[in-house]
């Protein structure tokens, strides 16, 4: 079973994606602390997109967050993608800069990959024990 969603990269849509992820996890019988960790990591990754990915670009419908998730045996892989210009240091960052460290602490693995022609993909894996 897979989850694939693409929504405009707005703050309002971050909880929307988290709730969609929660529904997906429920369908996979992933619950408790594991589910809480996944939902927090997904939220942090989506928030990074809203705060950073499209900061220097005009507001258009192309400013999307893509969320994809797939369960493979005892591994859940979740990807959060944007089509922006990538992460750049930001002196006026509205956050604490804790997003990526929190993601790293919650995941089994995390990779940040550039996309062609532009964009960034954060791929996170979690160990799961579906019921």
């Amino acid at each position, binding site marked *: 079973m897979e989850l694939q969603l693409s929504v405009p990269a707005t703050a309002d849509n971050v909880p929307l994606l988290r*709730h969609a992820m929660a529904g997906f996890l429920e369908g996979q019988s992933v619950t408790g602390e594991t589910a809480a960790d996944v939902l927090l990591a997904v939220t942090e990754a989506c928030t990074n997109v809203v705060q950073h990915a499209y900061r220097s670009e005009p507001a258009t419908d192309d400013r999307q967050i893509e969320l994809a998730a797939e369960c493979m045996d005892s591994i859940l892989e979740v990807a959060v993608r944007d089509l922006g210009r990538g992460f750049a240091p930001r002196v006026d960052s509205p*956050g604490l800069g804790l997003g990526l460290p929190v993601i790293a602490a919650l995941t089994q693995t995390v990779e940040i990959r550039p996309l062609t022609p532009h964009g960034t993909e954060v791929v996170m894996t979690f160990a799961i024990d579906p019921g």
Partner: protein
Amino acid sequence: MQDPSEAATNRDPHFVRRRVDEVVLVLQVDGELDIKSTDSLRSALDAAEREGNIVRIDAAGVSFVDSTALGVLLASAQRLSARGGRLELINVSPPVRRILDMTLIARTVHVIS
């Protein structure tokens, strides 16, 4: 089937202020605290800070907190500390406690078990 956008709206936080005495103001918070609710959380804390030097957040109804919400809490805690007050968190659920511990925010915000 519930509309996902409706589900999101239903979990938007709401805030109730209750004065305990001249110093302590309890802010009861229910819902989810993330980038969507940053402004409302900031406004609620601003109002609470005006009414009390010790702002005690009753987080029993808080089901989710992310790092953007922690940033708002931390800023409030620092403002209160600068004038001799403090920000307290009570009735914290295990998932919320987890991110507090992970980010060492409990060094600044007083988490009362």
